[in-house]
């Protein structure tokens, strides 16, 4: 048996204000490049962050091991 039909609601779209122009949105390659660049720049930091986490966990493990 099919479920009872639901009510369809069309809420206002406040995000419409961010659209410039009336045609379909095209991805701005410059913006995408900037975002990719931002990710690439973080990659250098990422290894350091993870190492810091690992050091902290290792230290905690060592402390626990020393206290039976």
């Amino acid at each position, binding site marked *: 048996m099919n*479920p*009872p*039909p*639901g*009510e*369809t*609601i*069309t*809420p206002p*779209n*406040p*995000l*419409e*204000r*961010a*659209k*410039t*122009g*009336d*045609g*379909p*949105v*095209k*991805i*701005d*390659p410059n*913006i*995408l*490049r*900037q*975002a*990719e*660049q*931002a*990710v*690439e*720049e*973080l*990659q250098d930091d*990422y290894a350091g*962050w*993870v190492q810091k986490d690992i050091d902290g966990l290792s230290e905690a493990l060592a402390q626990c091991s020393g206290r039976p």
Partner: protein
Amino acid sequence: MTASRVDFSQLGVMIVDDNRHMRALLCSIMHALGIKRVKEVGDGETALTETGAFEPDILITDWHMEPMDGTTLVKTIRHSSEDLIRYMPIIMLSGHSDMVRVREARDCGVHEVLTKPVSAKSLLARLITIIEQPRPFIKTEQYFGPDRRRQDIGPPHGETDRRSGAASEGDDDATEISPEGVLAS
């Protein structure tokens, strides 16, 4: 009709993730897109507390968090008495891409599901889809959230429909993401 662009500086985005590295990655992408209003929080409960004051246009949330996880956060938002919050577009991040998990996220009321690792291109595609193709909401006894039937609007902006292999609009001028441009959380 001329092609449109999105002025991301107009938007406010809240990022909810218990992993600070993931938050840093997402914030960095948001700022690079030109989004000035970005709020990051570490769990669902804080997100709910901060939502009223910050009034995000879009919420990006992780799935697995404590004490309140992403699905509970989404369900709570969908039950809000305030329209601005209840209808808020939500992107759920998940480390699992299997259909059961995607369906579970969809059924709790999210607009888009994004599997990790997150790339700038996939996140941008989801944001544009949300802005350009607002979905009506469906209210039944069991569900309140965006219309879960995607067949009429196709895959996210600039991505390929896995069923037909056809690309959606915007694919032609989208740059390919290199493996180096992707970070796992």
